[in-house]
């Protein structure tokens, strides 16, 4: 597995000290943290795949799981966190220069090799764009390997859209389309209105030679997958990245399994055919 940094004689639960070099406020309750390992040599050797995640620790509070939200081609580690529980609330109190802990990367990540030579349809809702952003930027940085890229991104309101500065950059990239949608009509909103599955039905992306990569809140995934299937996407070409409560990230603590697969170790990226086999209920 690429990017597995733990050797057999190091403590696998021990976080590495990391400095926050920048914090971006994405929405009222989502912040993106830009991180740098204090041990430069370790940082240089740290590699990961789009879709992999890390255990982020706020010392004295605990750990929480976040995907790395930017591409390994971009050289900085970024994590985006919505203010929700104990750890994320503490994260939102952090400042640039503060030290936090990081261990990882964990999980399988997106099958970037298998996606080569395919049209890619990215479907995301809310902060579900975070793992996809990593892959989108990765694909754009390796543009020749992939065919058309269509991005369908939704949020409750325009204020809840994350990584706003990047939409324009993506749009300008060759062979790349970006569709934005919000749940309800808003003043001054020029893009689409309606939930993500509805927007998809309007956009009618091609399914031939395409792979759909879906991430968002469970309810969005639940309604998006049938739409994709109806459009002709086969279960193998619908990829999603799952979120479940995780603690260890190592396939040991036992809570994040679906069937005999641990999301942290064997996932978080699964195709829909596999999920069906594992009795995963949308």
């Amino acid at each position, binding site marked *: 597995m690429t990017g597995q940094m733990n050797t057999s004689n190091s403590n696998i639960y021990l976080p590495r000290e990391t400095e926050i070099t920048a914090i971006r406020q994405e929405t009222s309750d989502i912040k993106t943290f830009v991180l740098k390992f204090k041990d430069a040599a370790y940082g240089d050797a740290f590699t990961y795949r789009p879709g992999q995640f890390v255990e982020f620790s706020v010392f004295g509070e*605990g750990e929480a799981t976040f995907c790395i939200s930017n591409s390994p081609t971009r050289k900085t580690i970024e994590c985006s966190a919505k203010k929700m*529980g*104990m750890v994320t*609330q503490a994260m939102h109190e952090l400042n640039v220069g503060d030290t936090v802990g990081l261990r990882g990367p964990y999980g399988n990540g997106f099958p970037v090799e298998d996606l080569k030579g395919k049209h890619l349809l990215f479907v995301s809702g809310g902060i579900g764009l975070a793992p996809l952003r990593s892959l989108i930027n990765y694909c754009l940085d390796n543009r020749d390997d992939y065919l058309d890229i269509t991005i369908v991104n939704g949020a409750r309101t325009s204020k809840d859209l994350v990584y706003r500065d990047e939409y324009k950059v993506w749009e300008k990239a060759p062979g790349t389309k970006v569709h934005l949608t919000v749940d309800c009509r808003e003043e001054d909103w020029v893009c689409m209105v309606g939930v993500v599955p509805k927007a998809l039905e309007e956009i009618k992306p091609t399914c031939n030679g395409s792979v759909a990569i879906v991430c968002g809140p469970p309810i969005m995934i639940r309604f998006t997958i049938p739409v994709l299937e109806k459009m002709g996407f086969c279960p193998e070409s619908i990829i999603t990245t799952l979120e479940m409560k995780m603690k260890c990230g190592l396939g040991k603590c036992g809570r994040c399994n679906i069937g005999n697969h641990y999301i942290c170790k064997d996932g978080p990226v699964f195709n829909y055919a596999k999920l069906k086999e594992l009795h995963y209920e949308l």
Partner: protein
Amino acid sequence: MIEEIRQKAKELLAASKVDMVIGYRRSGDGVSTVPAFIDSAQDVDSLVWDQNCVYNLANYLREFPGKKIGVVAKGCDARAIVVLLQENQLERENLFIIGVECGVTDISEKCAACPRTVSAICDILIKEKGRKSGAPGNEKDAYAAVEALEARRAEERLGLWREEFSRCIRCYACRQVCPMCYCPKCVADQTMPAWFSKATSLEGNFAWNVTRAFHLAGRCVDCGECERACPVGIPLRDLNKKLEKEAKELYKYEAGSSVEAKPLFASYDKDDPKDFIK
């Protein structure tokens, strides 16, 4: 006696007066019993009643909101139901309480010295024929263990509880088996703030066991399930009984005796003890 229980259960289910009857059935080992959840009149014959019917079935009643439930209730179980009704956790009209009288030492060791063998609340009371009715346990003996402990030196008591709590593995069986432990988020599971250590250290275990007991002050009906469930044998009832004794001595309050009574700590009296206050 069992025939009467089955008959009543059958009648209730057949007439759709209840959706389910919770009682006891024989377990696979052929000796002990397990809780039975019967939802069809045909299945009532699997119900049993004997000295192995230890479980406090009141613990399950909150799991079926909106359903009409018939429940087989011993004296202690019925008192637990009373407390749950007092605390608005159950709807009386959704319950059909099949009270069963149990002998004093019949059920298990947890029942020694139990003075209340008859349901405090029930819709029908099924008595055992030919037995002297409701021979009460000796109430004096009920606090023998507590009094013995009270008589010891403070350091000895602390040492004893430390020793007992040191075995605690925090499996929370005591909490889960207790009909009164129904907090949606137990303090032991809270993280913001985390009230006490999750570690099975002296502090963590001491805090957990003391908190559990005190939260049952004036609510524990002494069904003894916590102590029975504890895999490491912590004498939890000695904690509960002390609180029961205090409630009785200070406020003449007995948990589970009346649905109408205000809970111990939700009421007060102008003449409550005050000597300990400066």
